[in-house]
């Protein structure tokens, strides 16, 4: 942990959060989708996929964590953007930045904030890149604006009941090879050549499957997010193209429907993010008062106390 880097809050691993996060970084042309399984058709429907973010509960370096693939230590480091993670809670942002900085898709625009940052850190080593990232004010404040609980800025350590640590790692294709970018490792991990003529996601699926299999015995939470091209923009370009040629087919209708779907999704994301960022303190206070005026407050307290008692007893029983 670095003192000067300020506070970074935990944020949720959610496609809506990440999609708006990158938009607020000033990046255009990309969006984030969640994958529910490693099935081929899941990847097929999202193509082209520019990078994957894999989230899991971090159980510390163990035998299960032995490194597959080799750590890159040669001149490729000059090209690959890799930052060491210096701030724990920043790992969600770190993972997405790793994709954005290495993405070469022509439809993506990095925007001034990340564009300047990329230029500025070009010659830095991974530790310096990580430090620069944690000190970048715009990136930090956008990241923190997605924290759900910035109302209650109290000492988290004294009250946190959940010590689980989640970690995000990035998988991305660079120059025909598959890399894993994990800020807790010493460098990018090279998972080898992507077979000629095959989509890179075919190469990443077994790597992820392998990783999940290793954890499957413990109860580990996984989450997989894909950074893909902005769908709405893509459909709109296709539609414009068809309309310019005066084509009136089922394809036109299908595209209109897809655009509509994307818009609905964006609205839902916005709604959820407004909910996430809202200051709930006035509502909580009024809610408690309203419960009181309906004589529901103290019964609720008793119920909550009872639950807590049961939890404590179970904990005790589990220990003895």
């Amino acid at each position, binding site marked *: 942990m670095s003192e000067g880097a300020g506070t970074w809050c935990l944020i949720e691993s959610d496609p809506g959060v990440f999609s708006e996060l990158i938009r607020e970084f000033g990046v255009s042309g990309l969006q984030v989708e969640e994958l529910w399984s490693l099935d081929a058709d899941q990847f097929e429907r999202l193509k082209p996929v520019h990078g994957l973010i894999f989230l899991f509960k971090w159980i510390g370096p163990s035998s299960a964590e032995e490194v597959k693939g080799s750590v890159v230590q040669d001149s490729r480091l000059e090209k690959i953007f890799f930052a060491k993670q210096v701030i724990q809670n920043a790992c969600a942002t770190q993972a997405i930045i790793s994709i954005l900085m290495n993405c070469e898709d022509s439809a993506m625009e990095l925007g001034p904030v990340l564009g300047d940052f990329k230029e500025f850190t070009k010659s830095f080593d991974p530790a310096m890149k990580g430090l620069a990232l944690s000190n970048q004010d715009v990136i930090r404040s956008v990241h923190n604006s997605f924290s*759900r*609980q910035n*109302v*209650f800025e*109290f*000492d988290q350590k*004294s*009250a*946190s*009941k959940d010590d689980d640590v989640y970690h995000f790692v990035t998988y991305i294709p660079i120059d025909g090879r598959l890399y894993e970018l994990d800020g807790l490792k010493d460098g990018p991990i090279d998972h080898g050549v992507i077979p000629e003529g095959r989509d890179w996601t075919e190469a990443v699926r077994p790597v992820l499957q392998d990783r999940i299999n290793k954890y499957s015995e413990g109860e580990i939470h996984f989450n997989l997010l894909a950074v893909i091209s902005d769908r709405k923009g893509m459909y709109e370009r296709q539609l414009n193209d068809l309309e310019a040629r005066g084509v009136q087919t089922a394809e036109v209708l299908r595209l209109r429907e897809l655009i509509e779907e994307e*818009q*609905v999704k964006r*609205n*839902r994301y*916005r*709604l*959820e993010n*407004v*909910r*996430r*960022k*809202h200051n*709930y*303190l*006035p*509502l*909580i*206070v*009024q*809610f*408690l*008062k*309203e*419960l*009181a*005026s*309906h*004589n*529901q*407050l*103290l019964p*609720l*307290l008793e*119920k*909550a*106390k009872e*639950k*807590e008692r049961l939890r*404590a007893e179970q904990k005790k029983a589990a220990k003895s």
Partner: protein
Amino acid sequence: NLQPAGGAAAAVDLSASVNGDLIRRITSSPATVKKLAPLLPQFGGPEVKEEGLVKGTSEEGCKTEVEETLLSPQFQHALSAFCAAFPTGQLGPLVSQFGMGSEAVNAAQAGNLEAFLNAIQQEVTTASPKEATPAAEGAEDMNVD
């Protein structure tokens, strides 16, 4: 008295017991909905409204929005964080901005959630006859008093 001898109580999470039943019990009162509605997250943008995500300003729409917000994971999470933060006493200064009586403010400063909730109940009960009767109009079983 209900107050524990040792001052600050163990962390109790109210959100775990907030459910649809409880919420509907209070939103059945239009006066309650009216007081909660302005404190909800405000959704801007005409597109959002068009999609039917915002239920509009009708009484029924407000009620639905209040219910949906109070049951949303985001509110539940905030309530849970509120309860977790309470024993630190750091919510005291924040809570004092909401026109609470001295007993509630003192309990918040001391980080005693149980004493705080008891103080709220006390305040509401003493102040309620005038204020709560219109809400209870036509609904005798609402236990307002």
